[in-house]
């Protein structure tokens, strides 16, 4: 059969020449340029085709450019790990370990990344409490300055095997020269075994424990008195009278989270239980703990010995009372009376590092029956074990050239040793110097070999905080960098075959009996003693007391200016100095960020700088400018120039400087710019480092400094609508004094319904069934520690702005702790008031927003719609609490104008916007862009999560009913003293409702007279003093304060 031929045109049918030509040349029109065999790029463009050619190339370039969008890969799991559901957080119990500190925590892990740390509620010590440093430690994991690989002579070593080989060969050259392992206090039980194992393989070697801030005096005193070089447990919960002699036990001393938790238990009062512990503080500078004291007395730092002796004498100790001034004498007598009255339920703690002082303190504790009741020798702390003499000997040995190898973990003496120069010199004489540290700290910089350690969130391990109380570590993320846990390295170097994990597991399985017990313990994160055996004492050897007292009575009080070197609540000893959250956290007392400074008394300000802060003129001029006067402090020929902050409550002859600042550039950009190093000023007397130094010369300096504070005004100007306080005696005599006043107002404005929202307004009232969020903050519990501030930052992706911006009052914190001084300027009362969005039901911010970007939810929440906000700032202006924060610059790199902020925002913000650091961001919370207002959202993401949880369980949301919680907000969860209670205020059984009912006598709303109807209430602060303030008199007192 013949094939049919199909044709499209006659041309095709006839096979014409024209058709042939056209079918061979598909694009018949001429190309816009001459195509010759030179190729496209050499083609000549005729003048007449210029426009065509240009159009083509522009279009092509535009097309090519716009096609090139960055490829963002989101790869789903091929095999989904069983426990990971994208978008759902997992929680792992582990332990915050920072040198000698150990706190049981729970890490929140989202999609494989730890993003938030909570306290572990199963720990009987901290009971879910955290500190600012614990909260911030998750950011250290993502620190851009972390060491990323092992190094020798500053060069990367490709593998651990190669590194181990290098160490092996280096060690083999040592001969008989001893190996010294220098660490900060090791709390790990198995870690100590690892060390022992290592030391055994290197005969003649030893382990030296060195803590940045020494507790050596206490250890030695306890050794003298009790035969144990250890620190016993302190039970602040059961102490009715707590006397602290310069110990900042709520902020920085020993184990502040535990102490704050237990202290707050003793300070909780309600209408049924109008009793609380009494806290008496003797100190030279204004510490956070002193700020919380019921009675606070000042003395020169050099008078510590005299105060301790006098107190011992007043308690019947066989010492002669030294001479003290009248005020102090009375104070000591009064304190002794209080202690005597509560024998067996009293506790004296002392922050001095002088063994003689601590011996007398031990004697005092013996005489008031504290040992065996509030002091438990049955369980001793492992948190601080370093004895200064060991370190001093090591430095001598190093300088003598008799140390072969120095292996350093945690310790950073090149920075924090008082004679760091000598340590550094000695280190040069050490043949092999190895550092395990995670960052290029000052000591690591001097070491030839660096093998970076894991962050604790990447580590396995255990920490025995005190005898019987163990907290386990488990990794929450695969190690980010080429790092190895120091225990593993030491095991390798001591020739062990197994790894550290199997060792930990083996050890604890042996202790706990079975693998399932180990699993359970790992899940819980803590191993606690089976039964609370109660406190036990220890044999007290009083022999040392007389000698100690003798030595102390020889101490003459100084006559010149004296210096106290202290730790800031935010930075502590300074290990976390490169943490922007901590640097930007305001100090509880001075409210300063990003700096250390000299704290001076108002009297000294007057005598040296002629600033009289009792006059409004000087006070205003001082407070409204971040530029502060400067001071040059000289101690034993070493001098330091720092800005000055006038802090009421500082002893007039005393100045105070914080450690932890003035870091090396290589530790990180954040740390490098902040403050100056005060460690070199530490004295070394009697074999121990001393933090109180007499005979300091101070002079005015002309250097320019700015100090960035987030609160500048000192007092509350007698504004009792803002904050209320009273004394326990007053509250007992008239428990209704606050409620009566509120009652009068209710009678006046809301007689019929007793509800301001229904009456006292022109507007209709709409019922709001269901949930109504409410918060209650007990000012009596708040210690001002700032854990909530950092927790809020971490939970809500709050921007870090840097020092310059804080000094321009551009700080972004959603939560702040207002600190007010009142009363005597030289020794004022301090009150802390956590201040956050009050979620007013009648919010002044809401009705002024022209675009309704902020509005009210049916659950009583004042909410922000970021993408609706146009940034008029009217809401912030009209907020009576000034809690709204505006994104002045693109702090979070979330802007529509990307990457134009170099030179505009600080290095700190830049660091926070690094790809690595941004892993810490909470994916549930929008990152706010420039030009947008923000403020506390009551952790809206958590509330949604909690509601979902309740919904899935088909029951109403639980917020504290029978101790069950579906939701806790970040600040509430972080608070070590349970000052913040949050929940559904419409539910009678919820914690917040009960809290309000039980404390009707102390409840108040800030600025209630404005009729803004806040959903956050406060409970008045109560000081446990015997002074009765009459209600009428209180009015007068405030009236008189108002003038100043």
């Amino acid at each position: 059969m013949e094939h049919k031929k199909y044709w499209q045109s006659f041309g095709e049918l006839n096979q014409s020449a024209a058709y042939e030509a056209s079918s061979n040349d598909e694009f018949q029109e001429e190309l816009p340029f001459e195509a010759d065999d030179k190729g496209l790029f050499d083609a000549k463009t005729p003048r007449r085709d210029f426009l065509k050619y240009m159009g083509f190339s522009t279009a092509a370039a535009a097309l090519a450019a716009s096609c090139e969008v960055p490829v963002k890969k989101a790869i789903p799991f091929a095999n989904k790990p069983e426990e990971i559901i994208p978008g759902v957080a997992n929680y792992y119990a582990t332990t915050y370990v920072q040198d000698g500190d150990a706190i049981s925590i729970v890490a929140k892990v989202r999609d494989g990344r730890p993003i938030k740390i909570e306290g572990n509620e199963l720990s009987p010590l901290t009971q879910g409490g955290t500190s600012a440093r614990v909260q911030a430690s998750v950011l250290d994991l993502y620190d851009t300055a972390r060491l990323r690989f092992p190094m020798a002579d500053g060069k990367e070593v490709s593998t651990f095997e190669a590194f181990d080989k290098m160490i092996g060969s280096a060690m083999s050259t040592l001969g008989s020269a001893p190996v010294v392992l220098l660490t900060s206090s090791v709390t790990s039980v198995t870690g100590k075994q690892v060390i022992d194992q290592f030391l055994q393989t290197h005969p003649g070697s030893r382990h030296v424990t060195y803590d940045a801030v020494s507790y050596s005096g206490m250890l030695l005193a306890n050794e003298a008195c009790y035969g144990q070089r250890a620190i016993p447990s302190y039970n602040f919960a059961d102490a009715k009278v707590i006397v602290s002699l310069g110990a900042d036990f709520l902020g920085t001393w020993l184990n502040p989270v535990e102490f704050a938790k237990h202290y707050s238990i003793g300070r909780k009062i309600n209408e049924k239980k109008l009793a609380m512990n009494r806290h008496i503080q003797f100190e030279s500078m204004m510490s956070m703990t002193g700020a919380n004291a019921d009675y606070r007395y000042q003395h020169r730092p050099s008078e510590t010995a005299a105060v301790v002796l006098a107190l011992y004498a007043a308690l019947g100790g066989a010492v002669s009372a030294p001479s003290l001034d009248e005020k102090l004498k009375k104070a000591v007598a009064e304190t002794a009376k209080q202690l005597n009255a509560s024998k067996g339920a009293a506790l004296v703690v002392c922050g001095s590092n002088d063994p003689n002082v601590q011996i007398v303190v031990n004697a005092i504790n013996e005489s008031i029956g504290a040992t065996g009741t509030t002091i438990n020798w049955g369980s001793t702390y492992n948190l601080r074990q370093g004895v200064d003499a060991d370190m001093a000997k090591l430095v001598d040995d190093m300088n003598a050239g008799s140390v072969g190898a120095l292996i350093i973990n945690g310790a950073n003496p090149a920075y924090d040793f008082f004679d760091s120069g000598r340590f550094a010199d000695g280190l040069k004489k050490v043949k092999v110097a190895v550092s395990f540290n995670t960052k290029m700290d000052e000591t690591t910089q001097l070491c030839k070999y660096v093998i970076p350690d894991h962050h604790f969130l990447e580590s396995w391990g255990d920490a025995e905080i005190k005898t019987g109380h163990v907290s386990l570590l488990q990794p929450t993320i695969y190690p980010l960098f080429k790092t190895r846990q120091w225990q593993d390295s030491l095991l390798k170097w001591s020739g062990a075959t197994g790894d550290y994990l199997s060792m930990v597991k083996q050890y604890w399985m042996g202790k706990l009996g079975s693998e399932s017990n180990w699993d359970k313990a790992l899940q819980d994160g803590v191993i606690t003693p089976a039964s609370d055996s109660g406190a036990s004492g220890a044999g007290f050897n009083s022999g040392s007391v007389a000698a100690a007292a003798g030595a102390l009575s020889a101490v003459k009080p100084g006559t010149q200016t004296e210096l106290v070197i202290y730790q800031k609540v935010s930075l502590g000893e300074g290990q976390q100095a490169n943490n922007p959250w901590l640097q930007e956290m305001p100090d509880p007392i001075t409210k300063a960020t990003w700096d250390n400074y000299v704290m001076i008394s108002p009297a000294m300000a007057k005598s040296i700088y002629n600033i009289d802060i009792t006059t409004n003129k000087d006070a205003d001029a001082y407070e409204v400018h971040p530029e502060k006067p400067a001071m040059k402090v000289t101690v034993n020929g070493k001098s330091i120039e720092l800005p000055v902050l006038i802090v009421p409550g500082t002893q007039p002859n005393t100045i105070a400087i914080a450690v932890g600042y003035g870091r090396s550039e290589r530790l990180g950009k954040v740390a490098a710019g902040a403050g100056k190093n005060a460690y070199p000023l530490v004295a070394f007397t009697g074999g121990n480092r001393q933090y109180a130094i007499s005979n300091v010369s101070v002079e005015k300096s002309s250097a320019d400094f700015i100090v960035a504070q987030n609160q500048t005004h000192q007092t509350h100007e007698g504004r009792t609508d803002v904050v209320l306080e009273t004394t326990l005696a007053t509250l007992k005599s008239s428990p209704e004094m606050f409620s009566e006043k509120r009652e009068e107002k209710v009678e006046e404005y809301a007689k019929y319904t007793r509800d301001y929202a229904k009456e006292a307004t022109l507007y209709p009232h709409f019922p709001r069934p269901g949930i109504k969020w409410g918060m209650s903050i007990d000012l009596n519990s708040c210690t001002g520690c700032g854990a909530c501030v950092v927790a809020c930052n971490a939970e809500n992706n709050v921007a870090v702005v840097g020092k310059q911006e804080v000094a321009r009052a551009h700080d972004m914190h959603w939560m702040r702790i207002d600190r007010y001084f009142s009363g005597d300027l030289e020794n004022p009362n301090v009150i802390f008031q956590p201040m956050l969005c009050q979620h007013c039901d009648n919010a002044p911010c809401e009705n002024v927003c022209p675009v309704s970007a902020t509005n009210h939810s049916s659950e009583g929440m004042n909410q922000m719609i970021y993408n609706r906000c146009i940034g008029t700032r009217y809401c912030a202006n009209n907020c009576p609490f000034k809690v709204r924060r505006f994104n002045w610059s693109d702090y979070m790199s979330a802007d529509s104008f990307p990457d134009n902020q170099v030179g505009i925002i600080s290095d700190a913000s830049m660091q926070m916007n690094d790809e690595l650091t941004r892993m810490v961001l909470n994916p549930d919370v929008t990152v706010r862009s420039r030009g947008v207002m923000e403020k506390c959202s009551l952790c809206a993401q958590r509330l949604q999560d909690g509601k979902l949880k309740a919904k899935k369980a088909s029951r109403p949301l639980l917020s504290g009913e029978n101790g069950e919680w579906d939701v806790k907000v970040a600040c509430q969860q972080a608070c070590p003293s349970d000052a913040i209670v949050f929940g559904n205020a419409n539910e009678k059984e919820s914690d917040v409702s009960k809290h309000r009912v039980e404390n009707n006598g102390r409840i108040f709303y800030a600025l209630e007279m404005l009729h803004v109807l806040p959903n956050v209430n406060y409970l008045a602060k109560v000081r446990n003093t015997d002074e009765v303030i009459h209600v009428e008199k209180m009015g007068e007192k405030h009236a008189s304060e108002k003038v100043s």
Partner: protein
Amino acid sequence: MSLKYESQLREPLVDGNKDYHQITEDIIRPIEVKPGRLWYIGFFISVALLLFGVYSVYREVTYGIGQWNLHKTVGWGWDITNFVWWVGIGHAGTLISAILLLFRQGWRTGVNRAAEAMTIFAVMCAGQFPIFHMGRVWLAFFIMPYPNTRGPVWVNFSSPLLWDVFAISTYFTVSLLFWYSGLLPDLASVRDRAKTKLRKLLYGVASFGWTGSTKHWQRHESLSLVLAGLATPLVLSVHTIVSFDFATSVIPGWHTTIFPPYFVAGAIFSGFAMVQSLLIVVRRVLNLQEYITVGHIEAMNKVIVLTGSIVGIAYLTELFIAWYSINQYEQYAFFYSRANLFSPYGWAYYGMMFCNVVSPQLFWSRKLRRNITFTFFMSVIVNIGMWFERFVIIVTSISRDYLPSSWSYYYSPSIWEIGFYMGTFGLFFTCFFLFSKYFPVIAVAEIKYVLKTSGENYKAKMDTVENQKVEEFAHDHAH
């Protein structure tokens, strides 16, 4: 019997022996010739300022409000101060055009055109601030209530800022219409005198085909009256609403019921001062002393002393009420933050008191009222004082409000905040220079209207008439 009535109190509104043609010559001539050197110098300085302002705004928009020194406590500073100040200045024009028209104040004709132009330019300047004070100015359209696909999401009608949007845009629209409708006959005059085609075309288009027919005049008069009627309440409402930004808030020092009348008086006060500053220069530069006479200046000085005194009473009332309220927050705001030379912003309060209340009292003296140099000096002082007033209200109040913990650092402007303000001066004067070059700065048609009753020429003619015999008069006027 006298046919001529010459007021013993009122001076003639137009000096010199002017006839209609001469007026047209005097006023329209400057449009037709090249401007003088002074004009060029002034114009280029203005443009330079404007460009600096544009750059300042560019910085702010590109890098954020952080380019300014506002902070968490002082969320509004120079931006809103300048806004209120410019809006205030924009008050005199409409007052002169509308209210004085309704009250048949003939003297307004000499100054109304320039004053209205000033109003429009001042409102244009004012408008920049609320727009560019926004953190995300590219979303400024969110404040317009229009159907949208976002829900629809509506604006918040209870926000005073939104009222501002309506108040100011209405005011601007009405003022512009008023000004432009007044311009029509004059633009037609310019067109008729035009010698080039282009000029003829442009002014022809701009004058909307005005022919000067009776019908046109009749409609023009009606329109003027209608617009005057519309504009009169606006004079009172605009600054009232601007004052609501503060009065409806809860901040001590802002939450003040006296604000609406006090703001309106202050606005007229500053508006007249600005008119004085401008016209004293313009009459000199464009040789218009015979149209803008000392009489005009004196009349405006009277308004200044009146409104200045009203403002002064308002200040004292505020202090009294703060004392009388026994409200410690009010008392702190007024007695500590403001009326206290040693408080951080005390200097601004005393600056305001001196400039606004004390110094205008000198105008009780007729000699000083008629002294042009002194008037110029005073007009500048008054405007500085009125700037201080807004600064004092805005900044001292929010810098120290309820919680002492939130009191923060001293607010002083950054270079870009100052630059933005300077830029609006640039905008204002650039517009004004262009206006004086291309538009008749005095309402030609209207001044001719008052010439009949007030010009020297008319008086001379009346004198002759008076001396004429009846027959002669009848003869002369016989048709």
